[in-house]
């Protein structure tokens, strides 16, 4: 899963590099969480376990591909 480009201004002082650094950190963490969720949803066993543990089946699709 690819994220959006982060550009760092060549004139930015070294002591201010933490700003774009935090942006990269947040982006990587968000993408990783999304990717983990995406593969969980594609795994029928994981999907079944998550669905069963949610206690609320209302409106949820209870069929899955095996």
């Amino acid at each position, binding site marked *: 899963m690819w994220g959006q*480009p*982060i*550009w760092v201004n060549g004139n930015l002082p070294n002591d201010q*590099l933490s700003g774009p650094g935090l942006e990269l*950190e947040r982006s*990587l963490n968000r993408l990783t969480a999304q990717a983990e969720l995406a593969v969980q949803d594609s795994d029928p066993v994981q999907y079944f376990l998550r669905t069963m543990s949610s206690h609320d089946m209302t409106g949820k699709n209870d069929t899955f591909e095996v």
Partner: protein
Amino acid sequence: MRLSTIGGETVDALYRQGQRIIIAFWHGRQLMMPLAYRGRLGSILISQHRDGEIIARIMQYFGFQTIRGSSTRGGLRAIRQLVKAGREGGDLVVTPDGPKGPACKVQSGVMYLAKVTGLPIIPLTFACSKKKSFRVGINFKFPIPARKDCSCGDNPYG
């Protein structure tokens, strides 16, 4: 193993404009990089630790140039080599949290690299529905070829 890619069109658009990039992903996912890489020439930063030697050989097998070093050993020389590789028209591949961690915390090296080379940093991540994790520096992940994956695929340059 089924692979799928999300967001690859952003990178393809940059490549079509002739733009080179810095690819950044969290440590422990290097072995999935050959599956995801969409460019032609990539230089990847790998630590000088003996575990890094195994990873470096695998990356070289898949056509990556390897630059050895990390924040704890050979870092300055590695940064210089990366800057040179970036200016010569290649992509740079780095793990912004490095082998020693702290895990998932960006260190300043990659930001400095982006500032000096003028290349954009593209965040990249991978996930596998089934994987084997083993200890090389920070937890290292390797996909087991039986389940679905979420990464990579169609290389626009073949």
